[in-house]
């Protein structure tokens, strides 16, 4: 089976759904042995130094992959052990889904106390607010038996 492999460097956190990719190289060849589609092991022959690649796209598999491990087999042989990046691979479909969002960076309800967000120190702040009016003056009151 002949397919095209593109090697990349990605400069994003792993949990980014849309990774910033810089292509390192593109290779085509024939798959000589069976390999997992989700966790493929690919050996590439190249005189270039492929040790900086950390990401891969295999067009025939329609998937993006993290490169978990690189083995320099020999002078020109590089063995890549990969794992599928499901976020990047299925990004359009995922983003088209609706969900109940537990936490969000820009959309929030600050009155939900989930026990994680609102941390306080052990030094409370005391504020006093007076009412506008109170008791002023003193006057006598005398109770006398009988009336008029």
């Amino acid at each position, binding site marked *: 089976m002949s397919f095209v492999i593109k090697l990349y460097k990605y400069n994003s*956190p*792993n*949990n980014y759904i849309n990774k910033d990719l810089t292509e390192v190289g593109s290779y085509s060849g024939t798959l000589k042995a069976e390999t997992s589609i*989700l966790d493929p092991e690919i050996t590439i022959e190249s005189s270039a130094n492929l040790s900086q690649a950390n990401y891969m796209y295999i067009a025939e598999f*329609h998937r993006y992959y993290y490169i978990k491990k690189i083995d320099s087999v020999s002078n020109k042989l590089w063995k890549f052990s990969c*794992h*599928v*990046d*499901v*976020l990047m691979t*299925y990004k359009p479909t*995922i983003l*088209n*889904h*609706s*969900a*109940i*969002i*537990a*936490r*969000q*960076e*820009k*959309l*929030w*309800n*600050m009155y*939900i*106390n*989930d*026990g*994680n*967000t*609102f*941390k*306080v*120190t*052990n*030094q409370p*702040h005391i*504020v*006093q*607010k*007076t*009412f506008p*009016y*109170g*008791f*002023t003056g*003193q*006057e*006598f*009151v*005398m*109770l*006398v*038996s*009988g*009336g*008029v």
Partner: protein
Amino acid sequence: MAWRFVGMLKELAISINGGTAQIITNVKMPGIPLADANGILSNGGNTYDSGLEAGNSISTPDAYNKIMGLSDSNLNLIDYYTQISAGGYIELWNPSAPNYKIRLTRTRYGSVEVTFYNFSLNTGTRYSHTVYYSSAFPICRLNIGFTLNDDNSLSNVYFVDMWQQVESSTSYNAWFRVHSYSLGDYPQITYPCILGIITGNEIEPLPEGDPNYQGGLNDQSEGGDGNFDDTSDIISEPSAPTITASSSGLVTVYNPTLAQIQSVAQALVNPNIFQALAQSVIKLSDVIIGLSIFPFAITDGGQQEIKINVLGVQLSTGVQCTKAAKQFETVDCGYLDIQPYWGNCLDYSPYTKISIYLPYVGYQELNTDEIMGRRLNLKYRIDLVSGACMAIISVNSSVLYQFSGTCSAQIPISNENYDGLMNSIMGLISDAKIGEGKSAIEAKSKNKSPNIIKDNSGANGGLFEAIGEHVPGLTEAAVGVVNAIKPSISHAGSVKAAPGFLGVQTPFIIIERPHQCLAENYNNFHGYPCNMYKKLGDLSGYTEVDSIHLNIPDATANEIAECEHLLKGGIII
């Protein structure tokens, strides 16, 4: 004895003391039809007296036969009984079911010449029940009954032994000791069962559970149909009472100045007044009931001469004095708006605590959740006669709190007055709360924020290797719980009555709020609580999904599971 033999099939085996069995054929109940084709006999509902106790008059074989339920021209159970002595026994069984034997033993009860017949079954599990039974039926000492399964096989054997008569009357009240032998499940002993055993009637089927009973399950949605009506009635401030001491004519409330009081004091030593008081049994304190100081302006009710009432005679003092216009005065302290500080849950309990100082009442805790973001109005209603006051706190124009106190300082005008005043002062001091009690601290310790440790360790059952999983912070415990369980210390003792004059005269609230400790860019890493239903593509930034139904046709099951796991762990869109 009354029983219903089942399956005896017209034959009954009997042996004495375990000896050779003899088979009684053609078993029947006298006066009752013979066993039917199925071998089921019925005693037809007749009541039998056991008559097996000594002293009963049983003389005829027929009577014995009736009692024993057997009839055979050649065999008579009584004959068998006479052949056994104390310690011996008779066994009865169905020859086709030899494992189920009924054993009748003969014993003596103390020194009384009473013969008891104890029944035992050589198989099954023995149970004892105690049932109180009140009936007009004559008490039988011994009864045997059977319960049957649906296929008429023997289920349980009951020996109803009425061993103690509670009342000696015609009602024959008694406690029943029921021994049962269960050949299956635990036997229920019910009143109808007892009745059936005693009367010989067929025992009513014991109630069983409805096989169709769903145990409360239902297939209809329930709930969610509240009326969502959160409108509130406005609790208006109460109006002052209309009936006053002054309107009774027995008491007049004056608002004298210091000079006027001094004039009254001089007038009291007027020879006419003094002599009138001295010649009567009336004391000064009977004519001048009270003299107090109030901490606010009294409404002017016009001028009036103070007259002393002695035995119905109005003695003029010549002192013109302002009369109080009304017995119940109002002091309006205005309002305060309690505004949120952060605009989040830290503004509410248990994080923020609010208390109020009320002159002449004291410090009172307020429920932060009830007043945050609302307007507090404070008014005092004061009774000039008793000195009692009521601090009325309205929240958004609806009365929510009422606290009572005393806002007058009494001036003793006699030794009784003084003693009473000192006693009340000492009482106020001893009742003062120096600090809140244990119960209050415990109550607060219960009102704490949840200490939720978010478990986001990434456990996925080993189905996939989740690269890109968000690892939460290490300090997720709610620190606010510490704040919530701190004890609340009272800021004052009693400030009622006279001591209140020495304290602060303007009410104020105390707001105790925590210092929030929030890292910069916290929301970039953890987001804020959201709980909304949104399309993921409409969002940006850190997003943590609570629930989602993923439908990715091109993905394998493992990939879908990994997707869901990553989404719930937090991704950045």
